[in-house]
Each structure stands twice: as C-alpha cells, then as structure tokens.
C-alpha cells in the first residue's frame, strides 16, 4: 500500500526486501507490505474455487483466503512445509495470504536497481511479476501484493484454467 509503485522512482532510501523461495526461484517483496508471516497451516480446500486459491486458514479469529503461488507459476502445489505471507488490503475483506515454499532473509536494495517487466514476458508473468532488481548475484523478481490479490487474479481471467492436480496440501 505504502507506495510500492513509487518505490522505483525514489532515489536514495534503500528498500528492504523480504526474499521468498518457490522451488528454485527467489522472489522479493517489500517488507512494508507484509503484515505477518505464518508457518505451515494446511489450508482447507474450497470446492469450486479457482485453481490458484489454495484454500482458507484460520487467522486471528477470522478466515483468511490463501493464494498458492506455485499454482500461479504453473507448478504443482507443495504438500510439505510452507510459509504464508499475510497481506492487508485497503479494506479488511481484502486481506489474503500467499503460500510460498519458504521465506529467506531481508536484503536492502537501491531503488535505482529496479527495472520494469521486460516487454517480451508472457501474459501470466506480466500479470504477477512487478519488474526485477538487478543485484550483483543476479536478478530478483519483485512481487506486488496488489497484483496477487484473489480479486485481481480473478479479473485478469488468466489463471482460471491452470492445469495442475489437486492434491495433498489441501486436505
């Protein structure tokens, strides 16, 4: 919420990124946007929900809808240990969780190192990635929680037919 989109334009102030792992890939997300990180919580599968919805988990007396990031990447959902990043929306109902394989350390990067999505990207990647940081060790793709919000994913219409099997992690 707090100006992630302007982050690229900011000069000076280093941005702290929370790194997260899915399979072999590492992604970064602005720490200011993350409300909380939960451990493994076996989401309850919701029948008829779009494939990128992993299910619901209890969260602070409420029910949190979770998005499976693996599904968005076209990978099989992961049955083992995972982490859930909780993001706030502008309204309480927009709060949601993102399921990733694991969360790594926090790194500080210069905003100037950010580069927008290249034009050659496929439509789905365009939709979920938010450019990348050029780091000495390589590229780190940035994520924007607003793009990963279930309502936004639903509107894009690109993820309704991800082919992947329903399996263990949801039971």
């Amino acid at each position, binding site marked *: 919420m707090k100006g992630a989109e302007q982050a690229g334009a900011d000069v000076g102030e280093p941005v702290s990124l929370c790194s997260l792992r899915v399979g072999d890939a590492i992604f970064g997300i602005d720490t200011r946007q993350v409300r909380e990180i939960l451990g493994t919580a076996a989401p309850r599968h919701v029948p008829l929900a779009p494939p990128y919805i992993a299910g619901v988990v209890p969260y602070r007396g409420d029910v949190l809808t979770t998005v499976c990031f693996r599904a968005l990447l076209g990978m099989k959902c992961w049955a083992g240990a995972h982490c859930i990043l909780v993001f706030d929306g502008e309204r309480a*109902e927009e709060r949601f969780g993102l399921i990733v394989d694991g969360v790594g350390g926090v790194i500080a990067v210069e905003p100037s190192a950010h580069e927008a999505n290249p034009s050659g990207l496929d439509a789905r990647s365009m939709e979920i990635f938010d450019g990348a940081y050029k780091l000495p060790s390589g590229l780190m793709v940035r994520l924007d929680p607003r793009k990963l919000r279930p309502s936004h994913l639903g509107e894009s219409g690109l993820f309704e037919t991800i082919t992947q099997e329903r399996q263990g992690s949801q039971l």
Partner: protein
Amino acid sequence: MELSPLPDKGEVDELINEFLAESQEGLERMDLCLTELERRPEDGELLAEIFRAVHTIKGTTGFLGFGRLERLAHAGEGLLGALRDKTIAVTRERTSGLLQLMDGLRSILSTIEIRGTEGERSTDDDWQLIDLLAELKSDEPMSAESKDPALRGPGKRDPNAGHPVLPPDASGADLATGSSMQDKTLRIDVDVLNRMMNQVGELVLTRNQILRCAPGAENFPALARRLDSVTAELRESVMRARMQPVGHLFRKFPRMVRDLAITCGRQVRIEFEGQETGLDKSLLEAVGDPLTHAVRNAVDHGIEPPGVRIQMGKPVEGVLRLRAFHQGGTVVIEVIDDGAGISTERVLEKAIERGLATPEQAASMTQREALQMVFLAGFTTALTVTNVSGRGMGMDVVRANVEKVGGSVELESRVGAGTTLRMRVPLTLAIVPALVVQSGGESFALPQNALVELAYVPRHEVEQALGRIGTTDLFRLRDGLLPLVWLDRLLRLEPRDNAHLNDFYIAVVESEGRRFGLVVDDLKEPQEIVVKPLSDELRSLGVFSGATVLGDGTLALILDVAATGARAGVRPTSDTENIVVAQLPQPASAQAALQSSMVVYEVAKRGPAQNAAAERMAIPMSAVERIESVPLGKIEHVGGRPVLQYRGELIPLQDEGGVLSEGSAAEVADAADNLAPDARVATVLICLRPDARGTRRIGVVVRRVLDVAAGTLLAEDAATCEEQLALVKDRVTTVHRGFTHPDDALPKSLMQEVA
C-alpha cells in the same frame, strides 16, 4: 472522519458524534410523543418530554456552534413552551408544524453527519419554517379553538389540517437514512459491562493457571472445565449486551403510519405489544426493512378506506398491531391488521394466470399453502393482485430478506377479518446450530434451520429408494418424490470408491421454497458453530455462506442451502412439482387419481406352515379415520363375529388376516403369562367404508402398521380376480376390499410405462 477541516478534529468529532447519536434518540422520542399527542392532546407529560428533547438539542448546538440548528430549535422551543404552558392548545396543524420542525432538525443533523458542517444551502426553508412556527404560536388564542372547534373561524391553515404538510415520501426517506449514526453506537447498562469485565478477569486468571500448568498435570481437566464455563458465561453476557429491545424498531412506525394513512385516506391506529422483547442488534437492523414493508402494505392494502369499513360494519378506525415475543429460541414479530384480508381464490387465480401453479395443484392446496404463494417471486412483479386482494408488493423480497438471516415468514388471513404477517427470526446470528456432514472426505456445516429431516439409505435399499426421471435423481420419501443433489458431484469432490455400493445419508433440506435431498457420505455431530465470513471471491462462488472452526481445530465451510439447491437446478417447490408431474407418462390429472396414499400394514401369516411369510396389505389413506390400539379384552364377539364398542358406537371388526385368532394362540404363548388380558393389544384401523346406504364405520384388525406410502392401483388380474392389487413401493400389495372403485385402477397398457 476526514471530513472535518478542524485541526483538533479527533476531539470535536467525538463530541459531534455523541451529540448526533443523542439528538437522533431525542428526535425518535419526539416522533413517538407527537403522534401520541394527536390522540391525547391534553397530556402535559408528553409536551414536557418533547420540550425537553428540543431544549437539549438547542443547548448543545449553541455549544458546538451550529447556528442554523440553534435558530430552528429555538423557534420550536418557543411554540412548545407556549403549548406546555397551555397558553395555546394542541391542534392538528400545530402538531404538523412540530413534525415539520423535526424533519428540519433531522435533515440538518444528517447534513452534519455526512459533511461535518450544517450547510447553508436551504436557509430560506429554515426561515419559512421558523415563521410558520412563530405564526402557529401566536395565530389563534386558546379560547377560540379548544373550547369548541366548531366555532373556530376559518383560519388560513385549515384547508391543510387534514393533509400532511410535508411530502410523505420525503419523511420516509429521512426516517430510513436518518439514524445511521445511531446504528454504530449502542447503549449498555453499566452493570452488564461490569459483569463482562469480571468475567474477562476470570478468563485471564484461568488462562494464567493453564499456562503455568505442567504437561499432564492432574488439575488440567478441572481447569479445562472452568475455562469452558467462563467462556460460556462471557458469551452469554456479550450476547445479552447485543440484545436490543424490538421497541427501537417500532419507534419510527407511529409517524410513518400517520403519514401513510393520511396519504392513502385511511384511518389507522397503531398498537404495540412486547416492545421490550430483546433481539440481537444486527438482526434488528436486518428485519427493519421487511417490517417497514409489511407495515406499509398493511396500511396501503390491508386496511380498507373508512367508507368501506362502515359498510362492512367495522369501526371506522383500522387497527394495526405490532407484536413481538419470544418463542423457543426465536423471536416472533407479527404485523396484524383488521383489514380486508386476502382472498385465497384471487391469489390462486393469479398464481394460475402467472403460471406459478397448475389448476390441479391450486385445487388441492390448503388455504395456508395458497397464501404462501404470495411470497413467490414473480407473483407480484407487475400490476397483479395488489389492488384487488390485498398484499403483493415485493413480498418475495420480504421473505428473501428474512430468510437471509435465518428466519421465516408466513401469512395468515381471513377475508373480511384481517391479515397477520408473522416473521420468525433467530435470537442471534453469530452462533448457529449446525450439523456437520461429510462428503468426498471433507466436512461441511449444514445450518439446522434449513434441515427438515435426515434419512439413512442402507446399501441394499439404494436401488429401491432411488429413482430417476430424465437426469434428475429422485428419492421416494413417504408419498412424495424428492429431487436429490449429490454434494460430492456438485462440488466436484473426489467421490468415494465404489460410491454406488456404499450406503449414504440424505439430509432433507428446505430453504427459500426449495426442498431437496442432499446426499452425503456421513453425518457427524451437531454443533453450535461460530460463523466467520468468507472473502468476497469465495462468497461469490455462491455455495458457501461462511466458514467455521470445528472442535478439532479444522475449518469447515458452511453450505448456503438455498444457493446450493439453485446451483443444482432445484426449483422452488411449486415449480418442481410441475416438472415431476409433467414428465410422467400420463396427464397430471390421471396420475393424481391413480397415485393415492396408502396405509400399508401386515396381517398374520396365512396358511398352516410356520414359515409362511406375513402378508402385506394396504388401505387407501383417505379411508382411514384413526389408528387405535385396543386391548384384546375390549373386543367382544356377537354371533361369532368380533365387534368393538368405539365412542358410543358398535362397529364390526374385520379380521381377514386372522390376527385375532393368531393373537389368542401365539401371543398368549410368547407374551409373558403373567400379563393380564387387558395388557395385550391389537391394532385397529378405524375406517369409513362406502356402502349401499352411505358410509359405515368398520374396524380392520392388523398385526402392525408398516408404512404410509404412495401406491398405484393395478387392474384386477384374471388369475386373482377376487383381489384388488396395488403397487406400493414397488411391491405388490393386496388392497383391502371395499375401499376402492374399480374405475380407479390403472389400465394394463399404462401400467407397463409406470413400472
């Protein structure tokens, strides 16, 4: 509130909010008092109360710097002061003026609520109103009008006296939106709050003890019990704090009814009963609109114009009663009018015209069923029935709104005597009783209020119990066919292995007029569940209304029964019947005659062999008057034939199955010897049998009653021409002679198709 430009806006906002909430309350009280005042103009207490309310508003506005509000309140106070001091008398136009003042105050208050300032756009109106109030105050001296209204000169406002000075719909809109601030605040008794605090203290203490508790400590069960009781008490207190008297909801009606009655040219008196009945705040808000609708309908369509009432010999003034009371975990709110009532004939006529029922269905409907047709969507969309027979406008919306919060609506009406609309709502929404069911390996919660009954279908009866017409699975439930919805298929869950070889359960559910059987793999325990809302995306799937955490910590989704039925293509009941009937191979009327409800019973074994099977027989349900248990000692014999003295009448008994003779032999043997003859009983069906001289009452002795089921009469077979046969639950059953007409039987050619 980001609206206020003031620097210390937090503090001021709080003051303003408090002021708004208080003023709204004051205005509502005024509303009540003013309409009351019209009936009891001499009541000084009422005037004093109104005066106080206006005075309070004036005082606070001055302090907060709302000049416009202050000026208006001041003018009103002047008039009220004069009225209170009896220097002038209460007249209709003065009351109207005061009501106008209230609307003025209310509109300024809502401007303040929305914009943070009182606005200046309509100061002219204010002056007009202030002038009017001043005029009313000085207009006529007391003596001229209070002593004898007839002598009063034709004052310039007289033509207005019978009409509302303000447009009625404007006042309605104000009433609807005017109290939003108040909706956010709640008054709680300090005692209740203190009690809650004590309970929270106890909860913290218990938690501390549990935290310090070593794993496997001895006192753990005791602590857990304590935690349980503290939680229950706390829950109870919070629930009680949320309870608001229904009277809050009733407050706005006297004014509304007054304005509405004047607009519609009716004379209506409104009465309340059970205003103190408590209802959860959220539910109170939910039933507000349906109730307003119902009241509006009652005045507009229920109560007749004075002329008609006089013709009918009723008092000119119609009475509208709002009544609230508790009944078994629900709150019942009734809107009762003594108006024209609803003519069921007209309702049915209209229903047939609109294709909501077939003439055959209409003919077989009870009055109650017919009245419920009013609630069907599509019944009332156009010009329809409203002007002719009474109700109509959007009753389906009323029902939908009430059912949304887990309630129900019904109508009772007698032509010429009036109509009662009854709403039944649960006490609270947050916690609902539910049944946890399992399907495809997942748990779902089924709200109890939608649950009608449960049926278990064992593996070996699956074939018999289920039928199929087209693509619809049907379940034979007693004498009806119930559409089935397989939950696992509907939700695309993984079906159990060999699903067809397993037994299953059918939860018969009904919501928003849809009645169907939900097939699930297993039933788990009934629970009180705490409803948690789902995110918008998941709610929009339209099958789940929420989620809940079960006792074992896992989440279960709560099924929205009506939406599930709709998704599965189940139509509201009347439609469904249409379909089933239409798809059967004969015209509906023929089918209705052939399919009749039968009492199936067992008679004694026939024939000498011990292994002879007990035979099933049936009697048409319509012929059976009562089923009685008669002690064997009471059965007497006349000329070798058994008779029974029944309610001062001697009726012959038929014992074709030989139950009595068997009873005297076998039962004596196995029923303990020490039983007195009176303790052994026979079951007797008291039946009415058509006879040459009318109908006669006879008793049929049976071994036991097995079932009541739909049966199809078969043509007499050449081989068994003596016996009338019927197909009941797919089994050939002998029908007791003398109760059926041969014409009823199904010709053989048709029988093939039915079977």
